[in-house]
């Protein structure tokens, strides 16, 4: 039993603070990802884009097993509304408001974003979906969330300064052991390991992998381009080797049952190296950023506790105990003050002469404003008082110092005074009471819903059933993840689940394609890009994806950095698998592509061709470049052949009426 408990403590628990931080970081990653998709909302998510919803659904009729709410949205305005809804889900998830509900809603939204066009799916989508699906079963809202705040407010209602100064109240949201914790850590570890196991190519052995990866214009970021141009080849070679070692190291380090104080931080650093490399230098959607967010999961309890002890900044805060809003803010401050820096004194005690305060603190002063006594015992009012309060809070030091800056201090002070003068009105408006919030006997304890001790049998059964159900579901999610990993990767070790159709079906619906083989067996040795050549009525040639003259020589790397969606889409559309989707791409391009909205003067396209341009990357230290290949994948003068059965009705619809039309 003791061994089981020992193992459970090591593998089935993640500190709630780590989960809370992960939620915030991952929520931000999701929001950034959504903003990147928003840029291409018309191209990828509306019927004006590369794949109208009806055409996609028609293609899916036989294969099926793809679900996207975004298929229901046709027009740009409709899609815009759907994106706003998705953003709201992500924001609420990040803030931790009804966390589980919005985690599920966010998962559905992310799966839908990914399932709207199968050709633009990438490694980042799969990883983010995996993390989000497992996270649903974890108490992500137990800390640093509005939920935890609300629970805490409901569980303990402080009424006096004694209640406020009592820091013994336990966290109201209990976090027990959960299989989800282990699964989440395994997902974080398996993904880099699966990549490393497939990276067997010569470039990895020679240490040229990052050199080549950084020369693929479609996939790199602006920072990546800078690194490519400035970093010495030797440094890139070392980086490549460190990168692969880090990929290998994460999972074993996470599973080490002993010396976790050492192993976990090293695993965190290794994961950080992998994540930061992919996030900063490349553009693989949310892949790198998700890995970076997952580093938060590896912060052990001891580290959190040691952080909590740092930064002592003891303050005494004199608040107005007649004002409901002030009491409420004091309760809030108590909950934000994780380090226990703040002690509270009611201004009633000052007027009664019961408080041990410097003589400079007068009754008028405490009735006028919040008064804060800093660690040296000096009193502060208004903005400066707020500044000191912020300094005492975790992560509040910067804000605290900023508030104290001249100019800003005066603005904050003015705002503070406006609120302070109306504090009783605001209290009444919020239903918090004013002018004599009922004073309680100081000896009476604060009300607390927390029932110490053992739970009654009914509650235990209820919890047991809930836990069992969650365990089953999380087990199913993990089995789905493993099945998809088996099916989508060429790994030496297999779970044997890759042939289970039920799991593969679930993985397909969840868009868990698991293409973990990043740069495997080695990065592309050719720099490739989709380039369109549109001839306008004025006989001008331009690339309708960029609005610039066509770069058929791949001489301008910046022109080809269109983001992860276009990079994945163009990679897929050029292969035969994507051939059946080319008719819709052709329609999109002939309508003007990306520049259709940017042109002020109407112009017309007379002819359009799209090429897959491929240029060999010169080996490290060599300057010579081989011959550039250009494969004609689209020609507006030639209709593509029917791609599959039932093509007679494929792609019908209002948009089909316009083959070549003026560009706006």
């Amino acid at each position, binding site marked *: 039993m003791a061994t089981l408990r020992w193992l459970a403590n090591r593998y089935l628990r993640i500190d709630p603070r780590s989960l809370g931080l992960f939620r915030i970081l991952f929520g931000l990653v999701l929001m950034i990802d959504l903003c990147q998709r928003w840029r291409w909302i018309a191209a990828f998510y509306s019927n004006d884009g590369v794949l109208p919803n009806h055409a996609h659904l028609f293609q899916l009729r036989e294969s099926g097993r793809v679900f996207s709410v975004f298929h229901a949205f046709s027009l740009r305005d409709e899609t815009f509304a759907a994106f706003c809804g998705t953003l709201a889900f992500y924001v609420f998830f990040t803030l931790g408001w009804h966390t589980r509900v919005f985690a599920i809603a966010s998962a559905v939204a992310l799966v839908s974003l990914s399932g709207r066009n199968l050709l633009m799916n990438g490694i980042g989508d799969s990883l983010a979906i995996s993390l989000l699906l497992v996270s649903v079963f974890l108490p992500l809202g137990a800390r640093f969330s509005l939920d935890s705040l609300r629970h805490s407010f409901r569980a303990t209602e402080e009424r006096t300064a004694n209640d406020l100064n009592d820091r013994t109240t336990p966290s109201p949201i209990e976090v027990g052991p959960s299989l989800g914790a282990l699964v989440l850590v395994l997902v974080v570890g398996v993904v880099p390991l699966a990549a490393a196991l497939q990276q067997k190519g010569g470039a990895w052995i020679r240490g040229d992998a990052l050199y080549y990866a950084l020369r693929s214009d479609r996939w790199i970021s602006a920072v990546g381009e800078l690194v490519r141009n400035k970093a010495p080849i030797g440094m890139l070679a070392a980086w490549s080797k460190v990168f692969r070692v880090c990929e290998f190291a994460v999972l074993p380090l996470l599973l080490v049952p002993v010396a976790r104080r050492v192993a976990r931080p090293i695993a965190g650093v290794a994961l950080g190296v992998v994540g930061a490399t992919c996030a900063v230098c490349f553009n693989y959607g949310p892949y790198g950023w998700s890995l970076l967010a997952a580093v938060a999961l590896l912060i052990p309890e001891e580290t959190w506790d040691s952080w909590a002890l740092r930064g002592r900044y003891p303050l005494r805060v004199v608040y107005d105990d007649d004002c409901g809003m002030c009491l409420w803010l004091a309760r809030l401050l108590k909950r934000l003050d994780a380090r226990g820096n703040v002690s509270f004194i009611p201004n009633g005690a000052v007027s009664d002469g019961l408080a041990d305060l410097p003589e400079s603190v007068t009754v008028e002063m405490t009735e006028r404003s919040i008064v804060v006594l800093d660690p040296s015992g000096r009193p502060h009012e208004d903005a400066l008082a707020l500044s000191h309060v912020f300094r005492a809070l975790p992560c509040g030091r910067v804000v605290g110092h900023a508030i104290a800056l001249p100019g800003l201090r005066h603005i904050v002070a003015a705002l503070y005074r406006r609120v302070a003068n109306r504090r009783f009105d605001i209290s009444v408006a919020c239903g918090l009471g004013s002018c004599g919030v009922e004073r309680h006997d100081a000896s009476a304890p604060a009300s607390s819903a927390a029932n110490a001790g053992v739970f009654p049998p*009914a509650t235990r059964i209820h919890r047991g059933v809930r836990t069992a159900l969650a365990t089953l579901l999380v087990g199913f999610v993990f089995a789905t993840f493993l099945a998809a990993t088996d099916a989508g990767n060429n790994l030496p070790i297999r779970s044997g689940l890759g042939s289970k159709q039920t799991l593969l079906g679930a993985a397909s619906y969840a868009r868990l394609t698991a293409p973990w083989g990043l740069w495997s067996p080695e990065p592309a040795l050719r720099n490739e890009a989709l380039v369109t050549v549109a001839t306008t009525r004025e006989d001008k040639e331009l690339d309708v994806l960029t609005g610039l003259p066509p770069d058929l020589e791949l001489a301008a790397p910046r022109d080809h950095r269109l983001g992860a969606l276009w990079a994945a889409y163009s990679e897929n559309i050029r292969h035969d698998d994507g051939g059946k989707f080319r008719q819709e791409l052709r329609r999109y391009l002939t309508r003007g592509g990306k520049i259709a909205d940017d042109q002020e003067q109407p112009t017309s396209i007379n002819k359009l061709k799209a090429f897959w341009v491929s240029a060999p990357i010169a080996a490290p230290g060599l300057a010579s470049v081989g011959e550039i290949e250009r494969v004609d994948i689209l020609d507006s003068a030639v209709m593509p052949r029917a791609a599959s059965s039932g093509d007679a009705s494929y792609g019908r619809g209002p948009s089909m009426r316009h083959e070549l039309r003026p560009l706006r």
Partner: protein
Amino acid sequence: MTRRETFAHAYRWFVARYAVADPRTLGLARIVVGLLLCANTARHWSVARLYYSNAGVLSSAELLAHPSSDFNFSIFTAFSTPAEVNVAFACALACHVCFTVGWNTRVFAALACLWVTSLDNRLVLVENGGYVVVNLLVLWLAFLPTGARFSIDAWRRGSRENRPSGITELDQRHRPEWFTAPHRSLASLVIVLNLAVIYIFNVANKYGETWRTGATIQYVLHLDRMVTGLAVFLREHMPYRLMQGAAWLTLLVEALIAVAIVWPTHRRLARPLAIVLIVGLHATFGVLMRLGPFSWFIIAWSLLLLQRTHWDAVESFHRRRFGGVTVTLAAARPFALRLGRVLARLDCTDSLTFEEGPSTGPLLEAVYQGQRVTGAAAYRVVWRALPLGFVVAPLANVVCLGMASSILRCVERNRVSIERFFGWDRPEPDLASDGLACASAIARSLVWPREGALAFLLLCSTSAVLHDNKSIPAALKHKQPKLVRATLGYLRVSQGWGMFAPNPVREDGVLAVDGYTLDGRRVDPFTGREPDLNLSDARGLGLGQIEQDYFNRIRLDRNRVYRKALSEYLQTWHRATGRPEDELVAFNVFWLRDRCPEPFAVTPTEHEQVCLLSWRRANFRAKTGMPALPPPCKEASAEQKD
């Protein structure tokens, strides 16, 4: 009195009469509408494979490629395969159940709105006035606090705010403002006004010759695609003169309803009169014709006419009839206290009073009409004193398989164990506070945005009333702005009211498929039987609303674009049956029509077969001994003649 005071007085007079809704009325409406939504969803679910999935007559891809209007949104289009569509219907049903029981009512009211408009938009071909009524009713209800009474939300909120700590406190009932005060909002006005508009235009638009001569019922009862068996019986036995009277009576009743709804005085009588007339009229429609949700949702809508005075009268009657029960609960027993709390919360008519009994005595005893009753009889007396208890008590007995007394005895015997099991023997935590404490302030701040949205919807509805009704003079017709069209289109809330107006249809019709299977049989996939191409001898076709409306609309030229999907469905029909021999090698789709019998006649005339679709499998050779396939028929227009 100054002009301002006059205006204020008039405003107060108007608001008190038309813009308030009793929470009990809203709660009742929520339950009834919720149950109807569940039934409506189940009705559509039963034909989901055929009408709402890719395996049916209109795939989502086909619908999205050819949307029925500029503003068409349906969440159902995201669900394609039959399995996915089943999931969608399950979600919709779950949502409606949550709305019905009043759990997170606001959220599920909004979601119910999304699901019903989506269901309508997914297959606009089968939309009729009933669907619009559903959309409108659910939309308006989403703006009203329907969860303030008779709901889980109200129960939870009440429990959070007040928890008697002793049996003697149970008599002090917790009745906060949200529980009792009438709700004042534009939504309360709009929802009643819209009901009146329906009847006003239902009368005004019926200016046709047929209504004047009173022949409407004669024609309507002979629409075989719509009528029920009862209507067939009536048309065969009812004298024409009676039908004439019934037609004029219908007009009169509709006019009376409109007047009774808006009548400003004697509302204690006028509103119930309107309810009775609506229930009578629409229950008749409902049992005679297959109109889908129309009749039942209008009846549900009429419940919103109930006012505080009616509820007070009902409560007073209930108190007199069943009240005066004194409940004796065992003192110092947590189980008894909890039972008392439940009874006190359910007893919204104040029919019960509570007193403490000995702690060693039974959990519950009752004193009724001077007699002390114990055991199961006591529970029965107490149940009867609760609202609808006289219905619930027998039902509960049935659910308990007649062993209610034994179960109660068992509970009494084991009450200590039960208390321990649920942890009731431990001290209770204090009442939870409001959490972040700003919820009420946020709710108050949302009142004006809500009223603004309602005002906009009212504007859109007014525009629709002027635009969609035939009796509105042309001078008042106008071009609707895009925003208004989009709002009305996405929400599917038109305001054209005129059932069988200005004249009823005189043409009956049905779709029939003459299909030839691989093994030489003739079959109509919609019936599974040999095709019946003669409509004149029909005595009601027994079609459901969805089928008959689909048939009636697919024949129209403007819906020709959807016939390809129908053809594809017929070509793959054998996959649905699972029998390869059912594969169709050829079919003709006909619109069979005839003219309803004229007054005093009983036989339809002008029977006609119009070919809508014809298909032959390429290179099919009939096996020897099998009859050769007939030549394909020539497709023609089946538009209505008059």
